């Protein structure tokens, strides 16, 4: 996280400088956060909403930095998105995983990182998060390129790049239980990625599979939300089991320019190291 501080501060400064410009657009919080692969969503799961607060008349830009600290790993990610007229979202995310404790058994430099770049597009298809009869539907494509394929290939991964395709449906029920707004999201993803792609794509146990992802959140007031996310994962490599992920999160939208998500995440076994749990922190700056 510390390594990313300069870019984070620069990003936030950019957003705060322009804060005065934003007063309308969409409702606070309806751009979601930046999920691990760079799309607008929760922490783990992409939602059908597009990043930022643009309506049909304008554009939005977001920048985000995310850190996950599990028992044995550090994952840092940073990226940006550009959304056009609440119709299409382009995003880019770079992920860097410090493999830490895994380096000793592998006999490699402890400073080794696994890295990948993710370029993605999300197209809003139909419906709306809040208004009208239908939930918001979107389809997304995330093209991932692992730039450190040496270790994944030794682990049995077949490809250094892969493309995820997903469809999401998201709805916010304004007056849900106890009068609180309730967000529900379901995502179906076709993917060949091992541990998001940080361990390459495909393997001896399989290649592409269909995975279900689910998110729900309750808005405590107009700025704060708590929620739960679940993400089913493939299991393509026989050298190490890959588990499904889930997290419990709290999100705070300071305004339409700055938001933060703090989560307790349960990531299961990752590359032979057991039962990884830890904190997830993501900060997003948004200018629309």
């Amino acid at each position, binding site marked *: 996280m510390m390594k990313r501080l300069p870019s984070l501060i620069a990003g936030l400064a950019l957003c705060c400088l322009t804060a005065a410009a934003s007063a309308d657009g969409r409702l606070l919080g309806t751009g979601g956060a930046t999920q691990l692969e760079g799309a607008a969503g929760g922490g783990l799961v992409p939602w059908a909403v597009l990043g930022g607060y643009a*309506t049909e008349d304008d554009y939005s830009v977001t920048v985000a930095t995310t850190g996950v600290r599990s028992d044995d790993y550090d994952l840092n990610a940073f990226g940006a998105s550009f959304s056009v007229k609440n119709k299409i979202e382009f995003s880019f995310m770079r992920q860097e995983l410090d493999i830490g404790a895994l380096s000793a058994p592998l006999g490699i430099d402890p400073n080794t990182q696994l890295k990948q770049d993710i370029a993605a597009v999300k197209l809003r298809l139909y419906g709306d998060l809040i208004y009208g009869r239908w939930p918001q539907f979107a389809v997304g494509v995330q093209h991932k390129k692992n730039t450190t394929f040496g270790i994944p290939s030794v682990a049995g991964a077949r490809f250094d790049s892969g493309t995820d395709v997903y469809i999401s449906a998201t709805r916010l029920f*304004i007056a849900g239980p106890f*009068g609180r707004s309730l967000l529900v999201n379901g995502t179906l993803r076709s993917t060949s990625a091992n541990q998001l792609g940080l361990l390459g794509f495909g393997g001896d146990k399989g290649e592409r599979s269909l995975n279900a992802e689910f998110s729900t959140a309750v808005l405590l007031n107009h700025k704060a939300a708590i929620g739960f996310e679940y993400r089913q994962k493939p299991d393509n490599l026989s050298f190490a089991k890959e588990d499904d992920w889930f997290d419990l999160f709290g999100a705070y939208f300071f305004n339409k320019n700055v938001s933060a998500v703090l989560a307790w995440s349960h990531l299961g076994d990752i590359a032979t190291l057991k039962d990884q749990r830890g904190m997830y922190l993501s900060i997003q700056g948004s200018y629309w």
Partner: protein
Amino acid sequence: MTKFRRDMQCLVIATAFTMLTSCSSVPSNKVALYQQLGGDSGIENIVDEFVYIMATHPKLASLFEFTDIETLRGHLEDQFCELSGGPCTYSGRGMIESHEGMNVSHGEFNLVVELLQQAMRTHRVPVGPQNRLIALLAPMHEDVVHR
């Protein structure tokens, strides 16, 4: 495909189906909402504040160029009162008719929602009743925007 995997996919599909078939929940006891908003005087205070910050907002002022603010205030009081289950009858024009030619954008509609939320917060309306009133007004979105 494992059983668990199948179950999770069923869950997501079931969730999607639920979202498709359910509408925003409407409070079962509307009289309670009217009371939670503070009855006649509570709604009057909310509407006073709401109309003031709406009509003076620089991004919305042009929408109210030809509006009689006093009439608008009266209509909104009646509308909120009736919607929340109070003893009033809204006698203004329908939503489509009253927004004809204004060409309200999605952004302007959302801004109005935010200003109503702000007005309710100013008058210390709890989050639950705030959301219930907004949920009753939200279906008007289609009749108001781009008319």
